[in-house]
């Protein structure tokens, strides 16, 4: 508990697509074991912020640090490629559309990373896959192919795939937005379980209730800036900014 | 690159290219005509005709064009068909490409929305008239590109008649590779002439496609 260095530290993040500025200087600091939810209207830049943490988006300005290592450091092409591959192995990413590999079985989806990137032997990797699948409640699907799974099951496998790399942090990019309503809970349940295990997480979501329940801190973003941030109780119960109030009113009483 | 050589042999190659164009055109006409008949048979309501049409396509697509050429040219005399190399080559290539063109035609017709057929039939048009006035005009547009692909394949396929001594481009190329010892120059000349033909054909197909598109 003496380690005060943040696990994720984003400073002055700026990003534009042509004339459109989607991130206008964002700061975000996430402590070890902390869970931060990022909310905001679509087009607010929340997904871009999340994706820039593991460099799926390249920032125009600003710094991203992971556990004391600068993610977007200036290196030669080849050196940066090696560096970023290393860094990404320490960050699990969960996508809105799951992005499971359709040509691989559930087991192979989970083990391909440990085997090819960590040199784990196949038997051990399969054991690991079983442990991870057990965690998300899908051990019986180990030999199924993604096409045979429901959306909720796919997303749980995607979480297991990310966890199998033993990441330091988990990034969730609207993990339940593409799911039918009745399948949302099974995925949320898995994320809550991770919260109990003190996984460091950044969760981009449009589910206010879930954010209130699971997050230690909530960021409200709009138009590429952080409008307001705070503990969920404060931010949801008595937001200070008018912009936040309007957004929450629309969302909580549609 | 020996450009003097290229210039010297060019007239011979241009003459050979005309033979390639001639055989392509004749085969194309035979191919389209036979393909139309085969397609009609395949879409007929008479089972025997459908079977014959399907058998034609299956047999000609299931065996090499080279064998079809040899069978007609070398085997023909045994069954009373005596043909010059050029005629045998053009007919065999035409019969061969017809099988592929029949596939393109059938594909075009089947791609026309079923609702079109139903709408016309519900207006009281007979089967034949619906086909002629409603389905075929729409299918024709859809056939142009696939038939164009067939035609380009046909132009390259005409090289096969070199094997029965038709003095077209590839035959000429082989002869000159042997006599000049300059394989790359000869290949370049031949390739350029093939490219010009295929490029011209591609332009023509594009123009046809656009002309059809503008009609509506």
């Amino acid at each position, binding site marked *: 508990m003496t380690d005060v260095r943040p696990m994720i530290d984003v400073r002055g993040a700026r990003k534009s697509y042509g004339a459109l500025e989607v991130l206008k200087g964002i700061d975000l600091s996430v402590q070890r074991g902390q869970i931060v939810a990022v909310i905001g209207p679509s087009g607010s830049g929340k997904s871009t912020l999340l994706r820039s943490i*593991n460099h*799926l988006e390249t920032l125009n300005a600003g710094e991203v640090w992971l556990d004391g290592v600068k993610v977007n450091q200036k290196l030669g092409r080849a050196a940066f*490629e090696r560096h970023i*591959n*290393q860094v*990404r*192995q320490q*960050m*699990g*990413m969960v*996508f809105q*559309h799951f*992005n*499971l*590999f*359709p*040509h691989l*079985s559930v087991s192979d989806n989970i083990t*391909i*990373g440990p085997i*090819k*990137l960590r040199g784990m032997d196949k038997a051990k990797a399969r054991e690991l896959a079983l442990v991870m699948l057990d965690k998300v409640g899908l051990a019986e699907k180990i030999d199924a192919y*993604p*096409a045979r799974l429901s959306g909720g099951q796919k997303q749980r496998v*995607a979480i297991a*795939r*990310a966890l199998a*790399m033993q990441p330091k942090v988990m990034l969730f990019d609207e993990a339940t937005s593409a799911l039918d309503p009745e399948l949302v809970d099974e995925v949320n349940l898995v994320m809550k379980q991770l919260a109990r295990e003190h996984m460091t997480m950044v969760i981009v979501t449009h589910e206010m209730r879930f954010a209130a329940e699971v997050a230690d801190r909530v960021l409200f973003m709009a138009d590429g800036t952080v409008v307001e941030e705070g503990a969920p109780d404060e931010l949801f119960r008595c937001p200070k900014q008018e912009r936040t109030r309007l957004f929450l009113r629309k969302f909580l009483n549609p | 690159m020996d450009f003097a050589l290229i210039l010297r042999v060019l007239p011979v190659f241009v003459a050979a290219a005309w033979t390639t164009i001639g055989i392509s055109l004749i085969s194309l006409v035979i191919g389209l005509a036979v393909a139309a008949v085969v397609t009609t048979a395949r879409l007929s309501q008479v089972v025997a005709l459908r079977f014959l049409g399907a058998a034609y396509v299956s047999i000609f697509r*299931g*065996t*090499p064009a*080279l*064998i079809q050429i*040899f*069978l007609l040219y*070398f*085997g023909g*005399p*045994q*069954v*009373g068909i005596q043909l010059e190399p050029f005629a045998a080559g053009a007919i065999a290539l035409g019969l061969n490409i017809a099988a592929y063109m029949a596939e393109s035609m059938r594909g075009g017709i089947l791609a026309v929305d079923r609702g079109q057929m139903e709408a016309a039939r519900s207006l009281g048009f007979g089967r034949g008239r619906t086909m002629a006035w409603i389905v075929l005009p729409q299918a024709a547009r859809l056939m142009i590109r696939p038939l164009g692909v067939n035609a380009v394949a046909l132009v*390259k396929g005409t*090289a*096969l008649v*070199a*094997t029965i001594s038709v003095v077209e481009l*590839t035959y000429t*190329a*082989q002869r000159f*590779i042997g006599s000049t*010892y*300059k*394989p*790359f120059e000869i*290949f370049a000349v*031949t*390739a350029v002439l*093939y*490219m010009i033909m*295929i490029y011209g054909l591609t332009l023509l197909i594009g123009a046809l496609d656009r002309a059809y598109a503008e009609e509506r």
Partner: protein
Amino acid sequence: MQGLDFSVVPPYWALLGEGLWWTVLISSVSSLVSVVAGVGFALLVLYGVPVAQYPVRFFMWLFMGTPLLLQLFLIYFGLVQIGIDIPAVGAGIIGLSLHFAVYNADILRAGIVAVDTGQTEAARSLGFGRWQTLFNIVVPQALRSTLPALGSMMVALLKESSIVSMIGITELVHSAQLAISETYRPFEFYLTVAALYYIVNLILEAGLHGIERKVGLSR
């Protein structure tokens, strides 16, 4: 007109069988090489450095616009004149492989581009490098989605392999020609050979169909 007499064929079964064996062998090897080389060409055209990309583009353009027979003549009769002497079987396999590799590359290029970008992002976010992602995730999916088109190229290759008889390889057509030179019965032998091609073709198509179904099931 002599009338047909298929009893001239059976004494040559062994010869035709050997020819058939070579046809199958040459076609199989060339099919395999043409797919592997097709993947290589497609990746070079899409992601290669300009120095590698443009020669491959030019080569593909050249080989797509010219007949296989001409290409075989260049490789077999042409290269020997500049001191590269490739035996006929080798020249035949190289010619067939390159000719179809170019078409396969064209098919695979489209297949690779069509793979969802989310797949690349997922692999990259796990820590896979660019080329690792291509070889482990993108190319296998492209091979699956283009399987029907690659399969029809194999079907075409089997038939076009008959052309290598022209550079003196004793495959099916050439073995028939040997039999004809002794019997003067072209019709009977070419018809027999056509039937053999037809049967092998049916088997190949059934096999490809089976593979497609199996791959379809695993998705």
